[in-house]
């Protein structure tokens, strides 16, 4: 009996999670896939329409913009916040005085709801109110920073605000990773003549591999779901130049009462994520096994 318990314990412990995940994530995904083949509007209706919703989706110029923005936003957001977060974490790990204060400063953007900080960012990035005016008042008459009002550049403003918000958290994540590394191997690298950057590049960062995976999942998740960010900062504008799949999904499903179309966009979104994430997950897990 006891032996049996010990054997099934791991699975037993995981089972609540497995059950919840199966129903509330995968069940819902299946549900959405089904919906995407229906003409559902305000509520789920099972009047199947084949691939109509997908056809409509791809004919929709807003979706096109949303996908394009997703690429720009997703890539830049992940890259920049990783870079900044990692840099800050590494620098903070150099026996810094007042580390706690700095850490909290980097983290605070996460704390404040974007419902409000979005307004601030609007002001800061608005050429008539923020940085541009500030610089011009300082005497740089030709200073121009008007991305927010440029159709094709506004998305970069969303990137800036997004990176500002999340970098601190990524920093915390990497800092936790760094703090878990055995100091002996760092010493060994010093003896082996590695320069600082080499120590990080070859010894410490490889140890942080799992943390990179964690950071990536967190960032990708935030990028895909950055709804507040866009709504608060640009409301999707100018025009719908800063539309993202998340805002598209939301407005089609809830504002415009096109649940079928919304579901179709969600399904496409999930497939895209799967195309990026699954190979990454696979290679990470495999790599782990190899070195285990």
């Amino acid at each position, binding site marked *: 009996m006891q032996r049996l318990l010990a054997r099934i314990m791991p699975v037993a412990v995981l089972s609540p999670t497995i059950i919840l995940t199966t129903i509330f994530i995968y069940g819902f995904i299946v549900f959405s896939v089904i919906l995407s083949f229906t003409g559902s509007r305000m509520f789920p209706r099972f009047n199947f329409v084949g691939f109509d919703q997908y056809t409509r989706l791809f004919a929709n110029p807003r979706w096109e913009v949303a996908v394009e923005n997703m690429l720009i936003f997703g890539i830049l957001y992940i890259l920049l916040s990783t870079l900044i977060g990692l840099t800050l974490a590494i620098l903070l790990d150099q026996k810094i005085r007042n580390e706690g204060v700095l850490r909290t400063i980097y983290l605070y953007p996460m704390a404040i709801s974007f419902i409000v900080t979005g307004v601030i960012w609007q002001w800061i990035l*608005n050429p008539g109110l923020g940085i541009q005016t500030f610089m011009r008042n300082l005497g740089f008459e030709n200073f121009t920073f008007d991305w927010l009002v440029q159709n094709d550049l506004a998305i970069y403003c969303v990137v800036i605000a997004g990176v500002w918000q999340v970098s601190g958290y990524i920093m915390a994540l990497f800092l936790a990773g760094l703090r878990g590394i055995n100091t002996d191997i760092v010493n060994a690298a010093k003896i082996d003549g590695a320069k600082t950057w080499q120590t990080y590049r070859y010894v410490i960062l490889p140890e942080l591999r799992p943390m990179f995976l964690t950071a990536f999942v967190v960032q990708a998740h935030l990028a895909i779901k950055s709804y507040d960010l866009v709504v608060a900062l640009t409301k999707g504008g100018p025009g719908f130049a800063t539309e993202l799949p998340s805002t598209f999904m939301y407005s089609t499903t809830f*504002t415009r009462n096109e649940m079928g179309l919304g579901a179709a966009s969600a399904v496409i979104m999930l497939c895209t994520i799967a195309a990026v994430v699954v190979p990454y997950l696979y290679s990470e897990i495999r790599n782990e096994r190899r070195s285990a």
Partner: protein
Amino acid sequence: EGVEVLHWWTSGGEAAAVQVLKDSLEAEGYSWEDMAVAGGGGDAARTTLRARVVAGDPPTAAQLLGMQVTEWAQEGFLGNLNSVADAGGWNDVVPAAIQQFGTYEGEWVAAPVNVHRPNWLWMNREVFESNNLDVPTTWEEFNAVAEQLQDLGIIPLAHGGQPWQDATIFDDVVLGIGGPDFYQAAIIDLDEDALSSDTMVAVFDQMRTIRGFVDDNMSGRDWNLASAMVVRGEAAMQLMGDWAKGEFIAAGLTPGDEIMCATAPGTEGAFLFNTDFFAMFDVDAGDAEAQQALAAGILDPGFQEAFNLVKGSIPARTDVSPDNFDACGQQSISDMAAAAEAGTLMGSMAHGHAQPSAIQGAMVDTVTQHFNSDMSSADAVEALVTAVNAAR
């Protein structure tokens, strides 16, 4: 027993207005459970509403905008208010154009609270007078005035680059250039000929012209910041609904005095409206009584006056005395009565009183895309037709 009311009037004057309703209901001995969800002009509240309904726990009443009442009624979630309506004589005092949204298949399902008029032009009197400018009554005049202002270094039109603000102007331009019949055909009936007509091209031309009168930093600006520009005299005019009055009053100015109000260029004689309804959900018998009381209370003339004085809009029934309203309000009331007579009282597309959400969204998309890019008018017309068809 009592009511649970879902609405998005959470702050400032709006909240105060709700308080009026709550007080009047509580005076009748019913409790009021407040379920307020602000944001996105009711977007968030509607999402919540759907979650509540799906969970099998709908509120007693929910604030909805015109076309949405119809959409909810179609789904079969709304209750029947006919007895209250008959008792209150709603059919007689509520203009037909508004009744059309409050009823579904001949039965009352929602009680109208107010009437907003989106097609106002607000102007800074000092700017106009010191520069000897006249209030424009057509789009040509508007263009001329705007050019003069531009030469003077004053921003002609204060605007916030958000899709609904763009669409508000679009409504005005369609109505102003095409006239009420064209508006009816193109915007309300979605007549394809009208949608793709030369008039529509001209409308987009005018939109492009207007874009030239707006400062470059308009993107994403909230409407109240645009109003503040008019207050400060940085900008001369704003095309905005009558809710802008609240912002002017808060700045210490009097609408109709320091801030002049006029109907949007070319829309004289017509009246675009948007109305907030409280849609009544099918509820248990226990709560039904309170629900009926709520509906009756909403249409009560005393309440209608008190509420709309606070809210800045005008009553949804025509028999309320205009005396206590400000100049612009009084003009609104008389204009509405006239328009109702003339059959030019029409729902605003930008504010959800012309098309179901999907089509409205598609139209707004095209408008805002055109306004924020260098799309040609012809292309815009084509895009409009395509988008509308795709959303049908």
